[in-house]
């Protein structure tokens, strides 16, 4: 494939201060757009993965050049200005093609090799196992067992091959129930709560239409109910708004009729569909990208986008599930329409509220693998990996990550990971650098032979886990069930995600980074102390042999440390398009500065002086223009 390789004298426009905009060279590689800015002695590189580009837009020609607006799925915005119209057109054409691959094989993951051998690759893919999580929950037991009926994806093509089902549900009930559910997505176990014996199960909507019923499906729900000796009924939660569910009845689908099922308590939750969520995000991003909004514009825009209302609706549903399980000891069956969007959000959120394991770095991987990847959340479609139907795209998974972030704001000590972890996962989901989020269900992934052709993300994240740790995490608190407040005023706008690249908006000193560096210092200090104590002992003659230093923990670190990895830029830079702080930052009078971001806590003398000229408040410059000349 031929495309433009580089264009010189391209301007990267600074959103806040046009004067500060850089002049540099744009490169297009097979996988990345790279913008290089060379000033005096500083070289700044901005890397954007083609897969991260969601749209490229040519704006009307201006006196200063030919503008191109690039929007990314990571919510980065690049505003480029070309001197020649032809360059702009060429880059535009190239990016259109590069950012919208048509076939799976064109995705980055099929090219990317982190220099692992086949054995590492295999181990990487086996690192997170849903089967292990079933045993962690205590399956199989007296009530639940692991079924291999879907081994060949014959009962349900979008479900995983192993399913948790009630022990007393016969094969006929399982297969019969599947036939009565949209796309065969029958009720199966999502999470088993050992303490209360209550379970969270998930499925798709029943094909009940206006009058149909199915004995096997009714028996299936009965079996789920009977699998919980602690509660005589189960909740059936339809996460959709009632109106949507009723509309589906006309199409032969719908929701459970309480009269036909014994001992169910039926409940709607009112989470909107993927189209409304897509539009809502669109509106939110418009609010985020306004150049200098007034407070009133911003708050009104935030309200009108409906985004936080939707986040709250997901959270409300998750809290409902968790409460039913831990307080009423009742099992819950959850569905929406197909049971792969809202159902995945709600079930996984309930898992996090109920089970501290899922609040750990590894636990979140397991949860995503279980509720999202294996249960057929259509990552390829929802993330728009390929140039397919734009109406299938929706930020369902993003909303889940945001709910976790909202929880972490209310409970700062219960998550092992920090905000960077959630943002990194989000970036990776859209990056297609690793194979985990390619395809729409397990069967598709198997057909694509992803495990042979691509690598798994999880070992990579685990290797970098020091970046993702929450220094405030307290294991002692981990056993508690989380009971978040869902009052509207406890939901915040997630600036770290949606304005991630507007560095000027973030706190200039980060408590998290400060604490992370302290914990790192602490580890070093502990190591030094051990070593000093040993040396003292030797000097005292207590220890005989001063032959050499004891292996320090770093040297003993996990074997994966030692495996060859890709050059740093390849493995990290590529998925974290690096923008030097000041390129995005604003501030009048800051023209002459700066190569460092904000006044970093604990920074050296030099850093401190250079950051003194920190760009300012976004708007102060305009204010000077308001000078009244005469009256």
């Amino acid at each position, binding site marked *: 494939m031929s495309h433009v390789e580089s264009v010189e004298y391209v301007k990267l426009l600074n959103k806040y201060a046009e004067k500060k905009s850089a002049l540099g060279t744009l490169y297009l590689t097979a996988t990345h757009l790279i913008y290089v800015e060379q000033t005096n002695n500083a070289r700044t590189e901005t890397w954007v993965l083609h897969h991260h580009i969601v749209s490229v837009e040519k704006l009307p020609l201006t006196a200063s050049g030919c503008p191109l607006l690039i929007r990314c799925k990571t919510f980065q915005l690049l505003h480029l200005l070309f001197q020649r119209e032809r360059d702009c057109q060429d880059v535009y054409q190239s990016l259109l093609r590069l950012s919208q691959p048509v076939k799976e094989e064109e995705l980055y993951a099929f090219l990317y090799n982190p220099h692992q051998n086949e054995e590492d690759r295999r181990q990487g893919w086996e690192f997170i196992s849903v089967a292990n999580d079933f045993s962690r929950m205590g399956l199989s037991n007296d009530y639940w067992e692991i079924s291999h009926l879907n081994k060949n994806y014959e009962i349900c093509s979008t479900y995983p091959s192993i399913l948790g089902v009630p022990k007393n549900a016969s094969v006929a009930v399982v297969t019969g129930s599947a036939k009565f559910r949209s796309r065969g997505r029958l009720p199966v176990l999502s999470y088993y709560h050992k303490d209360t014996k209550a379970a969270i199960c998930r499925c798709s909507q029943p094909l009940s239409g206006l009058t149909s019923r199915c004995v096997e499906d009714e028996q299936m729900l009965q079996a789920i109910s009977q699998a919980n000796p602690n509660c005589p009924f189960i909740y059936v939660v339809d996460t959709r708004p009632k109106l949507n569910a009723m509309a589906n009845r006309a199409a032969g689908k719908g929701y459970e009729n309480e009269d036909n099922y014994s001992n169910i308590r039926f409940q709607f939750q009112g989470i909107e569909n993927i189209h409304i969520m897509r539009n809502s995000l669109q509106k939110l991003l418009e609010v985020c990208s306004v150049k200098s909004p007034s407070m009133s514009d911003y708050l009104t825009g935030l309200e009108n986008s409906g985004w936080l209302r939707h986040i709250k609706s997901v959270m409300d549903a998750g809290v409902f599930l968790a409460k039913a399980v831990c307080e009423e000891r009742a099992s819950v069956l959850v569905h929406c329409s197909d049971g792969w969007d809202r159902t995945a959000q709600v079930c996984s959120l309930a898992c996090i509220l109920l089970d501290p394991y899922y609040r750990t770095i590894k636990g979140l991987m397991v949860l995503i693998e279980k509720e999202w990847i294996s249960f057929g959340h259509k990552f390829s479609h929802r993330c728009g990996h390929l140039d397919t139907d734009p109406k299938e795209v929706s930020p369902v998974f993003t909303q889940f990550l945001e709910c976790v972030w909202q929880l972490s704001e209310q409970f700062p000590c219960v998550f092992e990971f920090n905000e960077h972890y959630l943002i990194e996962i989000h970036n990776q989901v859209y990056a297609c650098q690793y194979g985990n989020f390619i395809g729409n269900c397990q069967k598709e992934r198997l057909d694509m032979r992803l495990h042979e052709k691509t690598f798994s993300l999880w070992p990579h994240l685990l290797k970098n886990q020091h970046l993702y740790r929450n220094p405030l995490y307290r294991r002692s608190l981990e056993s508690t069930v989380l009971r978040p407040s869902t009052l*509207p005023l406890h939901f915040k706008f997630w600036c770290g995600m949606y304005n991630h690249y507007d560095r*000027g908006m973030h706190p200039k000193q980060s408590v998290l980074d400060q604490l992370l560096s302290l914990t790192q210092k602490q580890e070093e200090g502990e190591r030094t*102390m051990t070593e000093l104590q040993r040396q003292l002992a030797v000097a005292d003659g207590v220890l005989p042999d001063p032959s050499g230093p004891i292996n320090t923990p770093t040297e003993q670190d996990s074997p994966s440390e030692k495996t060859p990895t890709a050059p740093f830029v390849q493995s990290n830079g590529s998925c974290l398009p690096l923008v030097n702080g000041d390129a995005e930052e604003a501030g009048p009078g800051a023209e002459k500065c700066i190569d460092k971001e904000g006044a970093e806590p604990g920074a050296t003398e030099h850093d401190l002086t250079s950051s003194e000229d920190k760009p300012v408040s976004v708007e102060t410059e305009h204010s000077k223009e308001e000078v009244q000349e005469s009256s």
Partner: protein
Amino acid sequence: MEFAELIKTPRVDGVDLHRPFMPTVEGTLCLTGHHLILSSRQDNTEELWLLHANIDSIEKRFVGSLGTIIVKCKDLRVIQLDIPGMEECLNIASSIEALSTLDSVSLMYPFFYRPLFEVIEDGWQLFVPEEAFKDLESMTDEWRLSEVNKDFSVCPSYPSLLTVPKDIDDESLCKAASFRHGGRFPVLSYYHKKNGMVMMRAAQPLTGTNGRRCKEDEKLINATLCAGKRGYIIDTRTIAVAQQAKARGGGFEQEANYPQWRRIHKAIERSNVLQDSLIKLVEACNDQSHSMDRWLSKLEASNWQSKVKEILTTACLAAQCIDREGASVLVHGTEGTDSTLQVTSLAQIILDPACRTIRGFEVLIEREWLQAGHPFQQRCAQSAYSNGKPRSEAPVFLLFLDCVWQILRQFPCSFQFNENLLIMFFEHAYASQFGTFLGNCVAERVKLQLSQKTVSLWSWVNRPQELERFLNPLYEPNNLVIWPSVAPQSLLLWEGVFLRWNRSTKCLDEACQEMVHIIEYNKELQNKVNSLRRQLAQLETEESPLQTP
């Protein structure tokens, strides 16, 4: 004692106290001249002491003979008292109403309060203008300390000592004073050591409709400019508002008369609008409804966050003129006692690292608010639950504290103090056992003899035992000018004040403790490592040299 006649029922048993996020407490309710006290019989540790002065308004309800009084406090807390017996309840309610709205300042609690601690350092002596002037003198000789306002006759709301340009004599000052609203002629607010630029503050000039001018006023502010340099006048009002002020005798500096100055108008609203904004915001925060749209639209409609943004933007502008443009600045609004002080004090927090220490922040409040004549008593007479028609109440100081919190949140390692200090100042500005925030200006405080008859807030805060609560564990002193972001995404609702009573702080407290723990442990560890190093070094010099790895 004169309070006795206001207290018809001094004591009721079997009263239930309800507070959000806390279990109900049953106990005995007592009223004293200054406090409402509820103490639990079962458990002596559970006691509520509420200053009557802290009570903003009350509501009463009856169900049969059980009366309920809902007490709404100036610190935004709402508590509910269930009082058996209608008569008792009515008596208590009317006593609270009377005692919480005493008109005479000299009946306030600070005049009765005797400290249970030893006053080591008298807070009344914390800020001595002469000493501050000595500091200034060490940097520049262009200023002098004037006694023109010795008896508060030139400007009733100014302190007796004022820093003015050396070349301007007292007579000129008097003339300039007569040209400024309330006699508030331009005085020095801040000297920027880095480049020698200054920030002055004043009230609006009294140009009126026919464009009066005052040579002395012009000379006074021009004296602060270096040759050939221009300065900035920041008028906190919009040009339209400033124009309207002319009709009432006020106005703004005409270019023709002040050719060396550029005037910039900003849109900080007058203090009377703020009270309404606070009431709406607190109403929104107390709304327990589950609709997101309703919350966001109420938050927007309160306009509080807009005001935070506007004030911070103006403060950044002032700081920028001084630090970036290397120009001197004069700030004023109308009276020069509200928005002017918000701007000058915030600009100093941005520019001057000293203001970010506890001591420096106290001095800033003392100098730029108390001495500068912010009318605390008028502004803080009522808070968000006032239901009477507002007179001159306005949360000007609270807004300032909110802005400081916003900067603190963006620069969590640059302040010696934490959020608790700001919240504490908010509480004490509205109701306190200390005399610091009584009165409206220095002249009034002198007349009330506050420094003899009451204890200063600073005497209490600066005790090591108290200070600990206000220390920011992340503080690392730096000499930076800190530029906050004023993008709406960067300005959050100050939960520590506005959601303080509507949320459980258990998890946040745990996080705080954990943070302190990490920092403390780290320090300990470094100390241990250092002492081990020393031991080893000693051993090595004493004994045979050892091969170090």
